């Protein structure tokens, strides 16, 4: 296969980047950086929120009754073996056959919910179960009801692991939303996929830097948020 992108080399890339950045369409309109960034962010955040609503109640309950740790391990192992690109492709074909329009965000959203759910589920179940039984006994001994034990003792103590699960889910969702451009959706991955298709190094690299920055910022923001809401004296068991 010919290799025109590589042959141009790093120096030519600078000119191409400048050319892409000086194009007015890069800064306004549906294909602008702002619009692609907004698409990417809202779909990623929505996917994590939907996944949280779907799996957290079940995970909290399973953790509380100290069941389902086998299920939690299996979920995360299966989630790892299925390629995220494959989940996206299957979700796209199912939704298109059900009548969703090509280019609509729904297939991407469904796939991202499926990807965000396993780490959140597993970390929540494991996090609640790793609370010391003696601590829970003490809380019950003080006359707390089951729901007070869950809300007042188990959830705060499990918070570092639960948020770790949310962080893993969010970062994976942002990464996979980039692949949304391969199933005719937008997002920042559009610049990368179009850059490859049109052999436009400038567009390719600007897209890649934006996607990388977004993922790193999300990772750092979630880590510091996790530290901020962790009760004093609770340490992440990892």
């Amino acid at each position: 296969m010919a290799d025109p992108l590589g042959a141009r080399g790093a120096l030519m890339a600078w000119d191409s980047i400048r050319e892409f950045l000086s194009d007015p369409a890069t800064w306004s309109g549906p294909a602008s950086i702002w619009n692609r960034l907004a698409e990417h962010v809202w779909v990623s955040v929505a996917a994590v929120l939907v996944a949280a609503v779907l799996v957290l109640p079940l995970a909290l309950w399973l953790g509380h009754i100290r069941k389902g740790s086998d299920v939690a391990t299996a979920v995360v192992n299966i989630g790892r073996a299925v390629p995220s690109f494959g989940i996206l492709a299957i979700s796209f074909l199912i939704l298109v056959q059900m009548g969703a329009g090509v280019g609509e965000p729904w297939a991407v959203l469904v796939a991202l919910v499926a990807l965000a759910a396993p780490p959140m589920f597993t970390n929540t179940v494991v996090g609640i179960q790793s609370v010391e039984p003696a601590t829970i006994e003490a809380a019950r001994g003080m006359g707390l009801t089951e729901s007070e034990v869950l809300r007042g003792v188990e959830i705060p103590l499990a918070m570092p692991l639960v948020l770790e699960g949310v962080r893993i889910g969010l970062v994976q969702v942002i990464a996979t939303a980039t692949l949304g451009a391969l199933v005719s959706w937008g997002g920042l991955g559009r610049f990368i996929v179009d850059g490859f298709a049109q052999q436009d190094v400038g567009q390719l690299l600007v897209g890649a830097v934006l996607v990388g920055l977004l993922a790193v910022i999300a990772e750092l923001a979630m880590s510091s948020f996790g530290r901020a809401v962790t009760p004093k004296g609770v340490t992440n068991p990892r």
Partner: protein
Amino acid sequence: MILAQESGPLFDWDWVARNWDQIIDRTWEHVTLTVVSVAIGMALSLGLSIVAVRWRKAYAPITWITGLLYTIPSLALFALLVPIVGLNATNAVIALTSYTLLILIRNTVAGIDGVPASVVEAADGMGYTRRARFWKMEVPLALPAIVAGIRIATVTTVGLVTVTAVLGLGGYGFFILRGLNTFFWTQIIVGVTLSVALATLFDLGFVWAQRWLTPWARGAR
């Protein structure tokens, strides 16, 4: 529903029979990309783990940098490498290798840290040199943790190889991308199923290898 009629049955076994050669070729490509990336990742992370164990201060920056690499989405990393190495297998291997480092280093260092202090003291008391103690005591006892890391890294890599389809490679990812472009279910199902099967096979292989490498752990429970 119209699309469903146009694209024929959900799974077309004739397609599989007609494209058997290509399935073999793509399997070989998928296996090669996975094995080469994980093997280079293992060599690099063993070196970096030794540095981190000997010189504790290096551990935080090593996990920070490999963690940063791990966070960058694969499609973006392939793209960033294009001006440096071009659009080829080298690009894919560099990116895939960089994703294995964090998991492998974390598990190796945790495994070595988990070796009981009494064992280390016994080795020292028997006159082992630091090097001999490392290779003959610490590494074998850390093997379960190291192999656990290799399993996670390998299964993750098998999944990520599918994305290298955008570089014109992709192993089974080639079928997924082709299926998407032609709305042809069979290719997507073949691509996803074979990728999951390959990941499972690698995983079982490592479970086996570990049992064979750590005979002392068999039946110990």
